[in-house]
């Protein structure tokens, strides 16, 4: 044991030793230069080919889910029982009953924190922070992490976009951005709900009544007439448009494009395992897209008011805005609209089906399914949110925004399974571990896992150098 280990929990010591073993370093203090070298070593070990981000927007209550606090004062304690999991030292609440079975694949990071002032009260800013990996408000609007990845690493499947957002609701549309990158790297949002049997992705099928055969005939005619302006004359843009036309034709006619989005090709057993509702089918579609070669998938599955449960249409009355922003009546068994309520109306209680019920089922199904298919080997899965919720229950029986401590969960791409990183005090308010990680660290982790060299800047159109996750460092316990 060296000196640094005295300040670390046993888990952190493990993580750090693994880190050092892998990187071949066993030095006393870490100087900045050594950290740079360490990061470079980590990069060589980067194993993710694809990333799946489950963005549960609104601020999921960590103390009701991944960071249970059975010893909190009664009046503020979560009503959901603490349960143990197959992993020693990892307890979760009963809302994660099914997920507890897959904990041997997970690292639960309980020491996430978001110290940037001014962002804690804003969902748009917080969401943008999570999507871009950098606190908004700086001189340059950062692109989504997914847009950066798509621009740097392209796609494994040319007939599919490199960065897909499922389904991507309008609130996030305002903060999801390719920033200074080319618009071609904008997140491709499918819209709608894959649980709807009539759901299709706009722009991915041929427009009204033009069958593949006629389309191919048209392309032939076009090719024979497209001789007036040859690439030799117009140079780069003329050539570029030609190859983009070919790629677009491929997207439109390649059966694999449709197949990647076609949930009916999945067995009913698999579909049921994820849950025949909005969230479950979004998670399943995400797995399909990852399997089809999409580089970066973000799931943003806010439950619609009119949705599906067990394959049947259902209306979640009162649930006009079902994200995780439980300012009011967080433990309601139906909607959260209460008399004299505040900003927390329009949701359903955290323990209900459209909230943790569907999340627990979908998440556990996703992890075990991806593990069975070998997808966890090279896919980094991240379950993220903007912040946590207050340890104290407010006068409207809700919990407000809480940025000092919250939980992210990771799996796949070399993330150790059955690991807990960090800890919070007995009410879940403040981090007690020496380790604490920010959303910038999360972004740095994603880039490093993908083997993206953060020491090389991107450049804005006016040539300002931009470093990726410039304020972050990869979370060592995830390597």
């Amino acid at each position, binding site marked *: 044991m060296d000196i640094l280990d005295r300040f670390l929990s046993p888990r952190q010591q493990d993580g750090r030793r693994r880190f050092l073993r892998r990187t071949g370093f066993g030095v006393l203090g870490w100087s900045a230069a050594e950290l740079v070298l360490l990061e470079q070593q980590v990069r060589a070990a980067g194993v993710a080919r694809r990333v799946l981000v489950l963005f549960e927007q609104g601020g999921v209550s960590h103390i009701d889910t991944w960071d249970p606090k059975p010893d909190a004062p009664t009046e503020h304690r979560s009503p959901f029982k603490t349960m143990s999991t197959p992993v020693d030292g990892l307890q979760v609440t009963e809302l994660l009953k099914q997920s507890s079975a897959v904990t041997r694949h997970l690292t639960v990071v309980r020491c996430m924190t978001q110290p940037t002032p001014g962002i804690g009260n804003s969902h748009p800013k917080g969401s943008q922070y999570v999507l871009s990996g950098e606190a908004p408000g700086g001189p340059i609007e950062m692109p989504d992490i997914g847009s950066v990845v798509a621009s740097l690493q392209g796609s494994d499947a040319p007939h599919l976009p490199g960065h897909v957002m499922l389904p991507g609701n309008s609130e996030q549309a305002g903060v999801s951005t390719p920033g200074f990158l080319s618009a071609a790297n904008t997140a491709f949002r499918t819209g709608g709900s894959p649980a709807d049997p009539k759901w299709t992705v706009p722009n991915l099928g041929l*427009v009204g009544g033009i069958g593949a055969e006629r389309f191919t005939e048209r392309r032939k005619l076009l090719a024979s007439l497209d001789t007036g302006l040859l690439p030799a004359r*117009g140079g780069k843009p003329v050539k570029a448009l030609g190859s983009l036309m070919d790629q677009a034709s491929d997207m439109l006619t390649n059966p694999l494009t449709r197949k990647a989005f076609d949930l009916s090709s999945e067995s009913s057993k698999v579909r049921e395992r994820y849950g025949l509702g909005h969230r479950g089918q979004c998670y399943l579609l995400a797995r399909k897209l990852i399997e089809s070669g999409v580089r970066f998938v973000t799931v943003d599955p806010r439950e619609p008011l009119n949705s599906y449960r067990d394959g049947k249409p259902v209306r979640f009355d009162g649930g006009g805005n079902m994200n995780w922003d439980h300012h009011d009546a967080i433990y309601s068994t139906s909607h959260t609209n209460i008399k004299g309520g505040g900003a927390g109306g329009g949701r359903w209680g955290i323990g209900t089906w459209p909230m943790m019920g569907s999340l627990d089922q979908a998440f556990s199904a996703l992890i075990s399914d991806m593990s069975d298919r070998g997808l966890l080997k090279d896919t980094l899965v991240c379950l993220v949110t903007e912040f946590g919720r207050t340890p104290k229950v407010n006068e409207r029986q809700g919990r407000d925004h809480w940025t000092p401590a919250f939980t992210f969960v990771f799996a796949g791409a070399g993330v150790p399974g059955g690991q807990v990183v960090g800890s919070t005090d007995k009410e879940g308010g403040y981090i007690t571990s020496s380790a604490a990680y920010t959303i910038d660290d999360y972004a740095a982790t994603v880039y490093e896992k993908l083997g993206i060299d953060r020491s090389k800047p991107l450049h804005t159109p006016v040539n300002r150098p931009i470093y990726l996750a410039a304020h972050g460092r990869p979370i060592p316990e995830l390597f």
Partner: protein
Amino acid sequence: MKRWRLALLIPALWSIPSPAAAAPTRPVAAPQPSELRVVPAEVRLTSRRDYRQVVVSGLFGGEERDLTQRARFVSSDPKVIRVVGGRVEPAGDGSATLAVRVGTLTRRVPVRVTGYSTPDPVRFHFETIPLLTRQGCSSGSCHGSPRGRAGFSLSLYGYDPEIDRVSLTRDGYNRRINVLEPSESLLLKKPLLEVSHGGGKRLRKSDPAYRLLHEWIAEGATVEKPAVTSTGIEIAPGPSRVLKAPYLTQQLCVVARFSDGSSRDVTGVATFESTQPAVAVVDGAGLVTARGRGQAAISVRYLDFLSSAHITMIEDVPGFAWKPEPEPGFIDRLVNTKLRQLQVLPSEICTDSEFIRRVSLDLTGLLPQPDRTRRFLADASPDKRARLVDELLETDAHARFWALKRADLFRVTSGRLPNGRADKLSEWIYEANRTNLPYDRFARTLLTASGESADTPTAGYFVAIPTMEERTEMTAQIFMGSRLECARCHNHPFESWTMRDYYSLAAVFARVQVANKTAIRLADSGDALLPTTREAMKPWGAKPSDAEPPDRRTAFVDWLARAGNPVFARVEVNRMWSELFGRGIVDPVDDFRSTNPPSNAALLDALGLEFERSGFDRRHMLRLICRSRAYQRSSITHRLNVADESLFSHAKVRLLTAEQLQDAIGLTSRRLPPPAPGSTSADARRYATQRSAPENSAFTLAFGQPKRETACTCERSTEPTLLQALELLNGGTAFTAATLGADTYAAMTNDTLVRELYLSAFCRDPSAAELKTALQHLSASTDRKAAVVDLLWSIMNTREFLFQH
């Protein structure tokens, strides 16, 4: 006036790889110059560490070439001066003569040395700081980034010496400087890589920079506030030089001037950078070496000052022979002069079909009506192109289309200018175009407008820009061609704009207030404070003695909108030129700075003068340009101009803009797409190019129609995207137009149909092969309507249709 300076990111358009890409060779024997010129004419050295770089030029048939590397230098008294490679260094107090010899010619330069034995410690503000810039330490990608690197933070290119002082002498547990053992200082050990350094090796012990930094530390790392300030730099031998074999080097010398009237050679601490390393490279001693044919700017930075030397490298291109051709006006004369100098042969003049399509799209945004095309093609008179230009310039469509471009820049949206105010400002811009309002009056009216924007539409310009900072940046970008935003927080990294300049310009707009979100009022107080010192800046354009004027904007406009302003006319003619050629003479059009020089400076100057001389008559300039042969060149290139992208030797092939394309589809199918539902404009004019507000439909957005969020023409992206390909192949706009348009065409006989379609789409007849293919397609089909739809669709997806050429 301002020092228009620097740039790091010039588009890669300047170097012209020669067909026979060979390294320049150095012939041994060189001809004798007729005359020798030496800068400076006399040298005064005032301390032991002082020095002076001498630049020697020879005159060859009226042209100057650098001979510094070839000259022999002899000191008349080695006890007074030593000379190494043209660098005069003191050896003791006294007077001496430096003899400069080339062949049989000799020039003598008197030298006086004083203060040799007086102590001259290294000066932190004038030497240490520029050295940190020179070695790259304080660049934006290293310790000069806002958060520094690896815990060590410097101000960007040394704009704030106080930050640097604390960082160097206090932070980092004082380990950065070790006065007792200077070579143990991290400031030296890190860049030498004696200890690990994320930035790699940045210094060698043999570098003069090492010696200076070491000396500064050994002298106690003193940071005394200097009694004088530096006021500027000068580059010898001058702003531009031509390099041609066998003279492929150019020595530069940089002299800084100080507020006490003194000056000092700073070549050894200045930072040199070439914008086009393929054309010329520069070393730390200011020696430029040519690499290949083309033009490059060598930027020189010293403290806040940035200046450039423009280098043109010419070499003989095998097979190049200039073909004399008519040069009806100054435009063709100056374009051709540059082409001849760089040995680029222009393309032929384009066909009538290409011309009518090109000029109609450029001036009106629209494809010509088939009847007009027919008449034009049949017209045999020699001046028909000139008459067509005149005719188009008088059209309403021209005034509308060019108003749209302007409203894009002004960010005219109903969100910013509600309840019809946006339309009123657009209408005012259109009216200004229609009546050909002189551009100086145009600028003055907008920039001094006050009142409710519903009554005074021009007040909408400022209403649409809510903050002082944005007004400063947008006005500079639109009317001065400068991107100022970097200077809001630190001195501009690529040019000479300082924070002081920025806040002095901001002071012009500090009292402009928006009332009720719709009106402009002038406040009685309000200042622009320099963030570092909280000093209230004097407004730009005001003389120090001036009393506070009733409207600060007036003094600014007096400075700006007049003949003789260094940028006003040139920025605007350059914008017009760029709209017509697809590339500015300065490009991008809002990035004027010495490190982004015009590709043809004489041409831009002449256009600017002509614009001023005409009384800022925009239509006159458009007419001149469109009538020039340069504008009428074909886009077909050949071996001797295929690599040219900046000298206007051939037409540039460009994707139609979103609006042009939507209208082209409508005109070709002869069924206009309706405005998109939910269009923000109340104005339902038939053509997208003629509407005052962007409709931002899926189609137009995919093709880069701006949302009017910035004042930058770069908001319109020009690179083709996958989304565009999807819209073309599968989008509703092309699909609907083809389907609806088929009805009109299906009624014609096959032969007429094909000919009419080609006339609409391309302004020409089909070739025999094209006609055959099209007719075969039509007659082979059993479903005539479907066959016509498919033909229309195919024609509208050809690249000849989608591009302007």
